[in-house]
């Protein structure tokens, strides 16, 4: 680094110091553990009108369903952009020739992968009952799908299939919302009876929505990892 750029560093330092002071002063004022919990209390008082044992799920998919839709769109935008950025390098050889991790890891991972998939699906399907849900489970699923690639050092990710899953799951999420609209209710209004809280089959359409979220997140992350692996060529020098 040149000398001139080193001498300039007091500005960011000053900025960071000022910000630290500002933020500390601010958050010292907030009553910790006793904050205004207006909306939270209202949701509590509604007593699980959506039938979800996990109230966080009720918020994520019910009360703030539009946020979740936007978030899925952000993941989609990131995966699409990453594909766009890295696809320009496609003309170079696509074969990925790293050695893999060896026999031991390969067999271990083939044993582990179905288990991981099972755990992922379990977490997704119980999102309305326990802590967990589509995002957490989706990440586990994505990792399960990605492990063989890591172990064998070759691509096993089918991008066409992934495009269908990510597109289809997102579209179904919206269509379930539109179905409520067609029935005369509001967009993204939870459908079907809430059922008995705590049962596996409860909370109306929320588990279905979470399943779609799980699929989409899984596909999206697998696509992102896949793009990065395809591009990671050992030939490129620093």
């Amino acid at each position, binding site marked *: *680094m040149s000398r001139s750029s080193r001498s300039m560093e007091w500005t960011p330092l000053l900025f*960071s110091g000022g910000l630290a002071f500002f933020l500390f002063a601010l958050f010292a004022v*907030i009553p910790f553990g006793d904050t205004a*919990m207006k909306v939270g209390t209202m*949701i509590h008082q509604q007593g699980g009108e959506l039938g979800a044992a996990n109230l966080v799920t009720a918020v994520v998919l019910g009360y703030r369903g539009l946020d979740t839709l936007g978030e899925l769109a952000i993941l989609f935008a990131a995966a699409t952009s990453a594909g766009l950025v890295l696809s320009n390098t496609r003309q170079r050889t696509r074969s990925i020739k790293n050695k893999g991790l060896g026999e031991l890891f390969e067999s271990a991972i083939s044993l582990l992968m179905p288990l991981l998939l099972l755990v992922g699906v379990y977490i997704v399907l119980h999102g309305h009952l326990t802590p967990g849900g589509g995002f957490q489970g989706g990440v586990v699923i994505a990792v399960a799908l990605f492990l063989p690639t890591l172990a064998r050092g070759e691509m096993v990710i089918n991008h066409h299939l992934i495009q269908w899953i990510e597109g289809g799951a997102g579209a179904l999420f919206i269509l379930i919302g539109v179905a409520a609209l067609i029935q005369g209710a509001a967009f993204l209004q939870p459908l079907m009876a809430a059922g008995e809280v705590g049962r596996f089959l409860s909370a109306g359409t929320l588990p279905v929505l979470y399943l779609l979220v799980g699929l989409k997140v899984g596909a999206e992350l697998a696509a*992102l990892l896949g793009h990065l692996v395809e591009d990671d060529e050992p030939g490129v020098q*620093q």
Partner: protein
Amino acid sequence: MLAAILYVGAVSLLVIGLAGMLLSSHLFRMLLGLVIAEAGANLLLVLAGYRWESAAPIWESGAYPQLMVDPVPQAMVLTAIVIGVGIQALAIALLVRIRQQTGSLQRDIVREQLEQDLDLELGVKLPSSMHAPSGEGPLLSGTRGAGNEQ
């Protein structure tokens, strides 16, 4: 006491991350700074919903707990984390591409390259622009070339 530790921790993460972003001379470390700062902001959000002596907002033995933490910030943090993951993945993809092109992720080297490339593409004469009076500048006809869809 606990409150102080938690808030100090969260705000410190935020400031450490931002300082890292501003002070690092390597693009990947700048990205790591962003990741750390995001963690700090997410922690602040979680703390905004914490209540003393409360349980998780989950149905247990026939009812929701009388005293429970606020579920809304937890949902928001879930959203914010996923947004952050998407942005970080995209950033890494961009970094991979930058390194392929310039062979480096050092901030100074990369920035120099950027300025040269931009001036070249926009038709600004490089060496003379330092000495030429700025009044000679923009020409309407000298701007084609950049942009891929016209």
